[in-house]
């Protein structure tokens, strides 16, 4: 075992690191708040009568629009061909809408010139009786808060329930250390978001804090399971609390990595797959994951060392007490 890695001795260091980051985060939050983003997008919509006049020339229309957009040196992020419906009967009314979506980096002037170019391009097609109408739009997304805060509450409740399970299953020392880890991860995640100015949706920081709590509980659970198993090993009996915890934490790194790496891979793969808005939520999940690694390997074990010493002492004194009691009872029984 690496003698320099003794979690108990390093507790003040981890507390200082966490406190420093959390205080810096609070200051940054008080001054600047979180870097909230309101996703904005721009669209060019081409509405046309698809039944009466354009018939087989829809492909030509799409090509004309796309050529005009390409000539302006702009690329669209999404294209939708949608049917317009009658509100009353939910049946198609014969009109279609071709929508090209652009990012918010496209300026209003560029959007305006794009609209004019598309309009000129479709006019040149010679299907004027197709009732073609070209418009440019700016859309600003509105966040629905209830879903986000309910999710954060759900994660917080789940975290507490999990810690209670840890308490019953592995002992209250483990639960207290896990709780410290959870609180640290929650605050640290929020602080790092405030310090690094990572763009987030409104209410998303709460959600990330909840996710940090869950990651923290799961990783700490693995550590607890490993410690429980390892501490039964007679080789651990001769070690001090600090050494025993340190040895077990080092021995558990493969198990923790086996859980951690697939989660990280899943986040990266989904982040790469998802659209811009969802990616803004998925990829920052790596941050709570990293924070929970820090707490499950460093902070929580360091907190657990003094607790383990205390609980071990309590246990041994209780054993002595029981032993004494038995010793007192045995002669009396013999006499009887």
């Amino acid at each position, binding site marked *: 075992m690496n003698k320099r890695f003794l979690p108990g001795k390093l507790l003040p260091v981890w507390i200082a690191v966490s406190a420093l980051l959390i205080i810096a985060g609070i200051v940054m939050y008080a001054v600047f708040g979180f870097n909230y983003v309101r996703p904005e997008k721009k669209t060019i919509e081409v509405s046309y009568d698809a039944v009466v006049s354009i018939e087989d020339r829809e492909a030509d229309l799409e090509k004309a629009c796309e050529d005009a957009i390409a000539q302006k040196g702009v690329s669209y992020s999404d294209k939708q061909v949608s*049917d317009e419906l009658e509100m009353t009967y*939910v049946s198609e009314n014969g009109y279609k809408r071709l929508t090209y979506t652009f990012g918010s980096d496209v300026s209003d002037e560029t959007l305006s010139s794009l609209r004019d170019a598309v309009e000129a391009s479709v006019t040149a097609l010679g299907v004027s009786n197709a009732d073609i109408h070209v418009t440019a739009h700016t859309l600003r997304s*509105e966040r629905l808060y209830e*879903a986000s805060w309910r*999710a954060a509450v759900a994660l917080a409740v789940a975290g507490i329930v999990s810690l209670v399970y840890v308490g019953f299953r592995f002992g209250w020392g483990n639960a207290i250390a896990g709780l410290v880890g959870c609180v640290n991860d929650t605050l640290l995640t929020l602080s790092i978001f405030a310090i690094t100015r990572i763009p987030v949706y409104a209410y998303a920081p709460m959600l990330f804090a909840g996710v940090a709590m869950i990651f923290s*509980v799961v990783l700490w659970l693995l550590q607890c399971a490993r410690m429980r198993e390892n501490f039964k090993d007679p080789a651990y009996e001769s070690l001090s609390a600090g050494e025993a915890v340190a040895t077990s934490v080092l021995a558990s790194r493969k*198990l923790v990595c086996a859980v951690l790496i697939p989660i990280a891979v*899943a986040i990266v793969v*989904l982040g790469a797959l998802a659209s811009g808005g969802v990616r803004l939520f998925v990829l920052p999940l790596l941050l709570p994951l990293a924070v929970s690694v820090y707490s499950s390997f460093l902070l929580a074990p360091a907190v657990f060392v003094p607790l383990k010493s205390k609980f071990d002492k309590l246990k041994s004194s209780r054993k002595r007490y029981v032993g004494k009691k038995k010793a007192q009872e045995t002669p009396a029984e013999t006499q009887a």
Partner: protein
Amino acid sequence: MGKIKSAIVLTLISLIIAVLCFVCFVPFPVGWVENEGESGNAPFKFFNPIINWTEKSSDFGAYQFGDEASYFGGGYSVVMYPEGVISAKEYRDNGETEDGKEYVAYADGAVYLDKETVCDGGEAPSEEFKEAFAAQLKCLKKRFESLHCEGISIEVKDGYTVSVSLPASLDASIAAFLYFSYMGEPTVLYGTSQDASAANQIIPETGSKQKPASDYIKGASVRNNLGTAYVEVDFTDLGLELLSSATADAAGSSGYLFIQVGGEQVIGLSISEQIHDDLYISGTYTSDSAAIVANTIDTALDLTGVEFGMSCGEVVRLQAGFAGLKIGSFELSALSLVYIVIGLLFVAMSVFFLVRYHALGFAHILTYLLFTVVMVLIFWAIPIPVGLGTILAFVLSSLLLGVSDAVAYEYARKEFALGKTIVSSVKTGYKKSFWHVFDLHIVLLAIALLVYLIALGEFSVFGLALTFGVALSGLGSLGLNRFLWYVTMGLSGNPGKFCHFKREEVEDDE
């Protein structure tokens, strides 16, 4: 287990899994199309695999109609225009010639604002209109959020219109668009004919006694009892007093009660007796439609003083929200892309297990395939819409199953290395890994269940899918995988080689 027995059991299990995989993932011909060749399509009728029958979320789905594939996805979208705001198309078609109205172009001509109503005679929207629009937007967000389903999107379009999208999986999408666009205070009218325009307004009182509607109506909510959905309208004492006196003569002659929001009727009732209590209205409501009506009335109570109404533009049917992959003329939908990525992850996982555990890897692969098939069947049967949350849950629970199996194998490998027999190694390996796997599963199961019960929308769907995923992973890892290990191992005469387990080399003292 003997070799022959093992071979028979393994063949049977493999056959069952192969058939299930085929039914779940592979389209196959089931007959001939009548009038073949007329449509120019292939002359075969294809069986649509169950993965295609699952509901798709608004982000991943692609709508499709017809007998062959009646699954939905994508969604519906509508633009809501506040009173006095019209689209550029409407302006081109009607606005320029409409009597007595002058319009101002706004947002580079994307919309047109009524100069008198919206701009108060000027060129820019008045403060009163801006405040009313803010109140309308707040109300719309509250209303649509109350639907508690995935895939809802609200966007402010061109400054003063609202674009709303709902998933196609929501049955009452169109009703939600229509009712939720009604803006203004709720009113209650009573008359003796079915024509609401001939009825008298009883709530709020008209004239000098006029108070906000919230002084008469406490709220509206939805109730479900024995499969019947009710809209409950809860009146204050003052409201009940007015309602009671207005309907005093209803016992003798039939009367009609109308509840309107912003002048649009949301409830119409025939009354045959005097009303003394809150209203419980049933009828042709489904749970969703009753919730929409109740929510429309309830949220309208906050719209006191908002004079501007709202109207819906054309509804548009949307394709899946997530863009797919397009390379030249080759196009792949986002959902297909996800299937491919999941397939690649499966291949990577299989390679890992086969390289590390040789033939034992097949036990895990069979377990995983069965897990996947059962997950797809659950998604289809419940149904759970396949979206980002479902896919995330599936990937996480797949990883959990992989990790759990690997942990059990590793414990057994250690035992085998110490010199135990393979049967004893498996037994001890599972014994030692049981609590690790159990703890992880039970905690994740609790988390998933709580997220499903407390969270809303996509998060709730994620929680539900993860609940099933974790439960199946636990059963697969601790039950099925162990059984399959015994079965597959029976085929080999050298179990250590079969599992790629090695004995620890002991140095010879001599």
